[in-house]
């Protein structure tokens, strides 16, 4: 499969589109002209892209929950509950995992059971099975903008129906789907599927409907932030080529304040820099931060504290959006009450910190992190571009084979998996193994020095035991494991 970073022609897009709409009967109801009209008649306050821009102008931080349950009635109830009791600014339809794997028939069967039994059978909202009418029934009932989300190797039909159904944004991406959600699908196939989704968003943009795309890059597992920023910027560049104009930059925080703030600031700076360098002049980027993935405490009081902590870090870096985990998700699919309580509590942090114009950019620790992080990101990204002879998608394929793009703990079999992280004495993520990353001596030495400090702290060499303990530290409510 020959996939390059080049805007699809209208002919190619519409030829692909025929196949996509045929994947499930609800596909035939999508009428792009009608959908563009629908969006144009919606108020600006219900558009994810426009509301994000507004947060940037006003220098405020909005709250974005992740929400999703299966039937129209229960999803509507969940969203209305969050709108009323959760003090959030956006709403979401999280896709169930069957829809994310294009298993629409099974999703339909489970949905039927859910309606019959009156209890949830799916772990999200099956956009494709519900079709445009079902989506709009939910969206017309709420006053806030709604995005849909969920990494998936093929989210094309969900894009057609989700957007025509009234959603104005999507969060997910080809690379996070590749490393963290698939085993055997070649990266170029997943990128090709996303080019379709991006071209569709571009089509709406060209007709005056702004839509928001949120890149996700890679899930963190004690990962130095360059391991997330590089794939995220690659996702940005792939989307921009297909005509996406509004992009949210998702930062996955991990708990070390200086490193997390440096992540947010460096990501924004370099995303804009690479967009400009590669000729995309009119793409609007906004920032967003959220808690790390991985094991979390089951104790609600500890989760409240962690959520508040991560919200504080995001707000210190003046992000435009914040997401959060919920108090009950470590035990089960979050309830509407659990979600509302979680967001109401972090709203307090936003309201406390937001009016304070505290500068973190000049903090010595933050500056030191930015210095090294910028070098790491540029070293990898420039190498990827060079390997692809200027084409970011060709470069991505070659770089993955070479281990220049790599991830720890990937579900896919198609990466080297040589890189691995460990925490330093202050809980920041450092490279335990740098694998084949194309770094200069200075970066090697920096990580070595930081790890040496941890070794002094624990009185032994860091080893696999340290790595395993670090991976679960947060679930005990601490940045470093208790000895």
């Amino acid at each position, binding site marked *: 499969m020959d996939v390059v970073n080049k805007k699809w022609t209208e002919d190619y897009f519409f030829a692909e589109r025929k196949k996509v709409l045929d994947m499930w009967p609800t596909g035939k109801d999508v009428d792009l002209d009608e959908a563009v009209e629908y969006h144009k008649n919606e108020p600006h306050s219900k558009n994810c892209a426009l509301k994000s821009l507004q947060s940037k102008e006003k220098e405020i931080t909005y709250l974005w929950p992740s929400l999703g349950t299966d039937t129209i009635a229960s999803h509507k109830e969940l969203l209305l509950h969050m709108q009323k009791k959760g003090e959030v600014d956006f709403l979401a339809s999280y896709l169930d995992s069957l829809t994310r794997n294009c298993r629409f028939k099974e999703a339909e069967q489970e949905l039927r059971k859910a309606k019959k039994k009156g209890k949830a059978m799916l772990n999200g909202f099956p956009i494709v099975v519900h079709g445009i009418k079902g989506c709009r029934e939910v969206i017309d009932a709420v006053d806030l903008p709604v995005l849909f989300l969920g990494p998936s190797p093929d989210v094309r039909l969900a894009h057609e129906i989700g957007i025509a159904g009234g959603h104005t944004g999507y969060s997910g991406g080809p690379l996070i789907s590749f490393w963290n959600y698939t085993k055997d699908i070649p990266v170029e196939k997943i990128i090709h599927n996303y080019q379709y989704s991006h071209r569709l968003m571009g089509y709406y943009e060209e007709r005056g409907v702004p839509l928001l795309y949120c890149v996700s890059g890679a899930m963190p597992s004690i990962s130095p932030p360059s391991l997330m920023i590089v794939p995220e910027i690659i996702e940005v560049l792939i989307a921009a080529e297909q005509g996406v104009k509004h992009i949210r930059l998702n930062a996955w925080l991990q708990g070390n304040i200086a490193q997390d703030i440096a992540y947010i600031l460096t990501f924004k700076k370099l995303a804009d820099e690479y967009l400009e360098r590669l000729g995309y002049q009119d793409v609007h980027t906004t920032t967003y931060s959220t808690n790390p993935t991985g094991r979390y405490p089951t104790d609600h009081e500890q989760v409240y504290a962690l959520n508040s902590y991560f919200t504080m870090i995001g707000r210190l870096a003046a992000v435009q959006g914040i997401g959060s985990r919920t108090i009950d998700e470590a035990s089960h699919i979050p309830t509407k009450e659990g979600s509302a309580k979680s967001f109401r509590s972090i709203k307090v942090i936003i309201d406390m910190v937001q009016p304070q114009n505290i500068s973190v950019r000049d903090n010595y620790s933050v500056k030191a992190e930015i210095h090294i992080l910028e070098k790491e990101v540029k070293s990898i990204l420039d190498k990827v571009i060079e390997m692809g002879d200027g084409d970011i998608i060709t470069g991505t394929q070659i770089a993955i084979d070479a281990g220049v793009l790599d991830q*720890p*703990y990937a579900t896919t079999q198609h990466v080297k998996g040589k890189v691995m992280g460990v925490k330093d004495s202050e809980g920041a993520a450092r490279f335990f*193994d740098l694998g084949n990353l194309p770094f200069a001596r200075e970066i090697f030495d920096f990580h070595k020095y930081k790890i040496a400090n941890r070794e002094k702290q624990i009185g032994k060499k860091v080893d696999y035991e340290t790595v*395993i303990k670090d*991976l679960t530290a947060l679930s005990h409510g601490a940045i470093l494991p208790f000895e």
Partner: protein
Amino acid sequence: MSNINSAKATLITGVIGEDVHVTGIRILEHALKNSGFNVHSLGIHNTQEDFIKAAVDTGADAILISSLCGHARLLVDDIRQKCTQKGLENILLYIGGQLVIHAEEWKKTERTFKKIGFNRVYQPFILPEPVIADLKGDLKIE
């Protein structure tokens, strides 16, 4: 990290069953490679047949199975007989992870899996080092 020099024994590694828990096996694979083993990883979502086929194809010395879904016993039920049928009479079989759903005495779990034909059975959160030491002993390396 130092690369310990060990003979090029070939190992098949992977997770059996439908669960996507990948962290444990990735750490083990990382450590095994660094110890000089030739690691043929199957990743997540495998059946016992996948493990056996890979072992036949690569002439492997050992199969290391990780399982976290709690249904391991059903999934590996007759793996030893199947190995023998495919001509892998002498292959080492190791298993580790969350092997049963309900809490039971470890000795009992270990006995169950040894009876199935596993040479080594490991408790959850085992570190790589003892596994590597066992492999070297069982394969008579160094």
